[in-house]
Structures are given as C-alpha cells and as structure tokens.
C-alpha cells in the first residue's frame, strides 16, 4: 500500500514537472524572473496609430502591427502573456516611463536622441532614413538643382517652415539638422500632413514648406495619393539615419538586453531598413485607386 502510494506521488510529481516546467524552473536572471513571476510582459506603446508599425484595427479594435508582433513574439519566448500600455501622452514621456520601470520595454518606432539617452537605454532594431515631403515650388525656389552635390547643404541651411509631431524626436532632429528652419509642431501626423497637402490658413496658420519624419512615413503619403507627386516630392536623406530603438530601463539593460538582442538577430532578422519595411508591408503602401 505504502509502495503504491509512493509510486502515485512520484508519478504526480513527474507530471507536474513536465506540465509546468517554467514556473518550477525559476530564471536566475532576476529581470526575466520577475516577468515570468508576473506572468506577462509589460510593453509601453505610443498613444498613436501608426500602421503598419502599431495601430488599432478598425474592424476588431485589436492592436496590430509589426511592433506589436515583435513584442508578442518576445513574450512567447519568455513563456508569458503580453500587456500593452498606451497611456503615455507623447513619445518622450513613453521613454521616460520605461526608464522609470513603468514597463519592461517601450516600443513603437521610437527614434534615438541625446535627450532620450538621459532617460533610458536603446536597442536598435530599425534603420530608417530621415525624409521630408516638400513642396516642389519651395524646392525650385532654392535655385539649386537637386542633382547638384551642393543641394543637400543648401536645403539644410534653407529658411523654411518644417512641420511634424510636437514633442517627438522630429522636433529635436529638425532643430539639429535644419538650423535655420522654423519647426511647426502638430498634435499628430495627420494634422501635419493636412497642413502641407491641404492647407487651410484659418486652422493651420502660415503655410509650411515641408513635413519631416522617416522614409516609411513620408513615402506612403504619395503612395496613397499619387496625384500629390505633382506638387510634392519626397526627399530622402541617405546620410541622416534614424536608429529606431526599443527602450529599456537600467535594470532592463542589464537583465534583458542580451535576450532582446538574440531575439532580434534570430527571429526578427537583424536591423531592418526603411526599404525592407516598405517592401515587407507593401499592402499598406499600395497606391489607392481613388
């Protein structure tokens, strides 16, 4: 009887080990251990919709996008669920919050600036060229042929009005890369696009000459409305690269950066360029028939 009871106990113990290995085998890495103990990965996302990176699907109201898939894949490798937090009011606040350990990671096409390096630790996963969508008349008024090697310097030093999202990396980058330009901040990207392509003097104020963001945000504007190509031209800066990064706290940098780095190399396929993203997500950028 005792031996039978002993056999039953041993079998049950083996079954528990087999069925719940992770819960039993606690990680030695305290950062990962904490996530596993909690049972979900806390991911900070910007409060915007930026397809195909991160956005609420209009039909299902589910979060979708390649940044969402990346975070979900990470959680799967950790053996936990994923929980997204979109309560930050700006990109900069999101980075500050991950630095303060509000989340395990912050993701969402977050650019790299000196200011953000004060707050958190970046791991690069995208490499996007900076880009402008500029009014062709403004470009002509510069008086330098775009094929002229001097054109880049002329443009960078031009007196112009550049629009983008306020309190974003683009505000900082605009001041650094276009020292003579006036930055005009907009609440969101749609407002910036409208101010350039469908300007209304009453609501948008003085006309802006260009809008500024990375190539994956600039190129789709003309893909969606090809007729805009007549009036506006994408300008791609091959020498100004936005190192889009996933941000970690100090604890996360110590305990999670190797795991994240390994995941990015093996599962994500290394650092992706704007061209890779535009090719991979063509469906989002196909010209509309309208």
């Amino acid at each position, binding site marked *: 009887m005792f031996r039978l009871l002993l056999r039953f106990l041993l079998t049950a113990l083996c079954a528990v080990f087999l069925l719940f290995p992770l819960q039993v085998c606690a990680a030695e890495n305290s950062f990962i251990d904490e996530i596993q103990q909690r049972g979900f990965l806390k991911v900070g996302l910007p409060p915007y919709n930026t397809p195909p990176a991160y956005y609420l699907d209009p039909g299902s109201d589910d979060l979708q996008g390649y940044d969402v898939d990346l975070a979900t894949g990470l959680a799967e490798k950790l053996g936990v669920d994923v929980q997204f937090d979109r309560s930050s009011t700006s990109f900069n606040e999101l980075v500050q919050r991950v630095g303060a350990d509000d989340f395990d990671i912050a993701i969402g096409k977050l650019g790299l600036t000196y200011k953000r390096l004060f707050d958190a630790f970046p791991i690069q996963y995208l490499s996007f060229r900076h880009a402008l969508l500029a009014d062709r008349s403004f470009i002509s008024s510069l008086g330098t042929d775009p094929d002229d090697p001097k054109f880049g310097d002329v443009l960078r030093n031009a007196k112009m009005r550049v629009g983008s999202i306020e309190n974003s990396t683009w505000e900082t980058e605009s001041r650094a890369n276009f020292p003579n330009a006036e930055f005009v901040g907009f609440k969101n990207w749609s407002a910036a696009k409208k101010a350039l392509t469908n300007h209304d003097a009453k609501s948008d104020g003085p006309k802006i000459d260009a809008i500024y963001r990375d190539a994956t945000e600039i190129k789709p504007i003309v893909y969606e409305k*090809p007729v805009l190509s*007549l009036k506006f*031209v994408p300008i791609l*800066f091959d020498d100004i690269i936005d190192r889009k990064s996933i941000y970690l706290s100090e604890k996360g940098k110590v305990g999670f950066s190797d795991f994240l780095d390994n995941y990015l190399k093996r599962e994500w396929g290394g650092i992706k360029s704007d061209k890779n993203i535009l090719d991979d997500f063509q469906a989002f950028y196909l*010209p509309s028939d309208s």
Partner: protein
Amino acid sequence: MTATTPSEKSIYQRIFAILPLLRKPRNFFFYILPFSIILGRLIPPSTAATFNDAGVAMVQIIAFPAIPLVLTAVMISIANIFSVSERSREDRFRFSSRFVVSLSIALLFGSVLALLLSLYQAPGVLSPDAKLSIGRFMLDVTDIRVGEIPIVESTVNSLWIANIIPSNIFADASSGQTLKVISGSILAGLAISRLKRDLTQPLITLLRSVNTISVQLLYIVLNLAPLVLICLIAGAVSTINAEIVVALLNFTICVFLTAVASLGVSRLVFRRFTSSRERAGLNVNPVDSIFLLSLSTGSSMTAYPLMFQTLKSMGRDESEVEASASLSLLIARLGNVTYNVIAIIFALNLYDVALTPFRLAEVAALGIVTGISAAGLTGVATVPTIAVALLYFQVPAPPVLVLLLAIDPILTLPRAATTGVLAMSISVISSVRSSPASDSNPSDTNLGLLAQSSDDSVFEVG
C-alpha cells in the same frame, strides 16, 4: 557549288533590296510603324533594353558620317562664299545678311507658332484622371536623394561660350563636339577664302572628296533606318506607359500640329521664293519629301543631301546651299525651339503659373535660346535643355523632364521633321540662283554621285 552561289547571292540581294524599299515614308506609315507597335506589344518588357540598345547602336552608325559631312560642307562653302577672288563684297554681304535675317525670322516664327498653338491646345492643363496617371508614373522616380555618394564627379562650370570655341578641330570632331566643329570649320573656311586658289586647291579637293564620300556613306547607312525605327519603336512601345501618352495627349498633339504647320509654311515659302522655272523640273514638292524623310528617320540631318541635291538641281548657288543647309540644320534646330516652347508652356500650365503677355514673351525667348543650345545634341539628349528655362520660372524641372523623356521616343520624330522643313525654308530664302557660267561648269563630283543614287528611296515621296 557553282549552282548554289548565285542563289545565295540572290537571297542576300533580296534581303538588302528590301531595306531601301522600307525607307520609303509611305512604307514607314503602312508597314514599319504598325509592325513595330505590334512587335512592341508582343515582346516581354525585359527584352526592351536589348531592342533599344540595338536601335541606339544603329543610330550611332547613321550619325557616323555627320561630323565629316558638316566639317567639309561648312569649310568648303564658307571658303567659296567669302573668297575675295571669286565673289564680290556685295555678294558676300547679300548672302550673309539674307542668311542671318531668314534664320532670325525662322527662329522667331517657330517660337511664335509654337506659342500660339500651345495657347490654343493648352498642354499641361490636365483632367483629374490624367493627373492621377502622371502621379502614379512619378512615384519613386522623382524622389530626391540627399547625401548619397555621387556616381559621376560634378563637372566644372564654365562659360557657355567655351562650348562653341574650337580647341583642336580634329579632337573636337573625334569627341563629337558638333558646335566646336561648326565654329572651327567656319574659321578655317574664312582662312581658306583669304588665300590664293592654287595654295588651297589641294585641300579643297580633299575636303570635297571627303564630303562626297560622307554623303555616299550616309546613303548606305541610311538603309539601316527601317531597322533602327523597328528597334526603337518596339522597345519604346514595350516599356512606355500608355497612360502617360494619353495623359499628355494635348502636348503630343501640339508638337505634331507644330510640325504640320511648319510643313505648310515651308511649302508656302518654297513656292514664294522659287520661280516657276526653278520648279519646272520637279515632279513633287521637295518640302514634303524632306518632312517625310526626317519624320521617318527621326533625324533632320538625313535630309541634308536631299536639300542640297534639290536646290542644286534647281540651279541655286552650290556654296550658298551647302552653307545655309548645313548651318540651318545644325545651328538653328527649329524643331527643338518649337518643342521647347511647348514644353515650357506645358510646365507652366502644370504648375498653375499665370501666363501674362510678358511671361509669354519670356517663354518665346527662352524657347529660342534653349532650342539653339541643343545644337550638337541628338534625340532624347536634347530634352534636358529646357531645364534652364524651368529653373528661370522656378518650376520644378525633374518631374517635367521625367514626363517629357517618357514620351520622347514618339516626339523626336515630329521634332526632326520641323527642323528639316524650316531649315529648307532658310536655305531657299538665303540662297540665290547661280550665274550661268557656274551653271555650265559644275565644280564637284557631288552631283554625279548623288545622281547615281537618285533612284534611291530618299527622294521618294509618300
């Protein structure tokens, strides 16, 4: 063995006999053009580059006799016209003034004609569908890249006149610097005209010989014209965006209308400035032949031997015909002047620039300047000359050039035809009948060799 040789020979003969027949403008419209379009629709776009390369290679062969032809024709004619011993001061002044005045009037006329037709046809005023087609076509093509490593080192900007001043006539000729060759030939011709006849005669004989050989060579290589057209049109049709052609229909029609209007005016000029006695020996209007020949080959220079032969056979002064025909074909480039005016109006309309009377005058002037600056350039290479005008009006040049280049394989034909017929007008106005003495004493072998080919299709009229 002996039985097969004649049959093989006859096959080759048959094959090579087809090419001159195909050069007839009538055959161009009825056979070559439809065949090339159908071929272009059938071949996969991946092979279009091969067709285009083959066409361009053959164009290079056709252009090969152009430089020696220009060099010798200009040098001989200038030497004859300005020869102190052979011509009076009044004769020299008469030809120079007639040539300059007729050239200036032709430039002004071409520019105004193109301007009026542009205002009537309104190229660049597009429907929403046409704008969408153009927008789609421009995607990715007109993006500006900043900071990329330049593929070609930037050229040092030099004064525009440096492109005209000859450095070494043989070096200029070998590097295809047509403008420098022309100016060098004019200077050399002037120098020859100041020397005694016995000193210059060996050189004149040599130049005349080179000229005659070049003309004959042009006839031979012109046999390739049908193949050139088949390759270029098929290649263009295979890749050209039909939507763009439709979107730019007004522009295309305007260029063709200008060519037809130029033909009409040239016919009138030919009638007005030639006597019925001069026209008595002609069965057909040579202006029509020049129009169709230039149109079907896409090169106005191919009309030079026909212009020379026609006016010479009418009794016009050989040297004056030689000088006026070659210079007006090469320098005036009236087809480019009219085309550039239409293209500038197209760009201004496209970007909603108001067309005030003063601006229209600026367009006419810039059309002439940029058109003349195309001298020495051929085909598609002439299109970017309008960039200067677009820059002046602060209109975006890259998208306009992209659109113009897309449809240029079609428009290069009427452009060449316009240059050909208006150059004929200049030649008819500026040359006069030669004296009876020189009529009875043909001084060169050109006529003989041209007559030898006179049954050729070059003189055929469709």
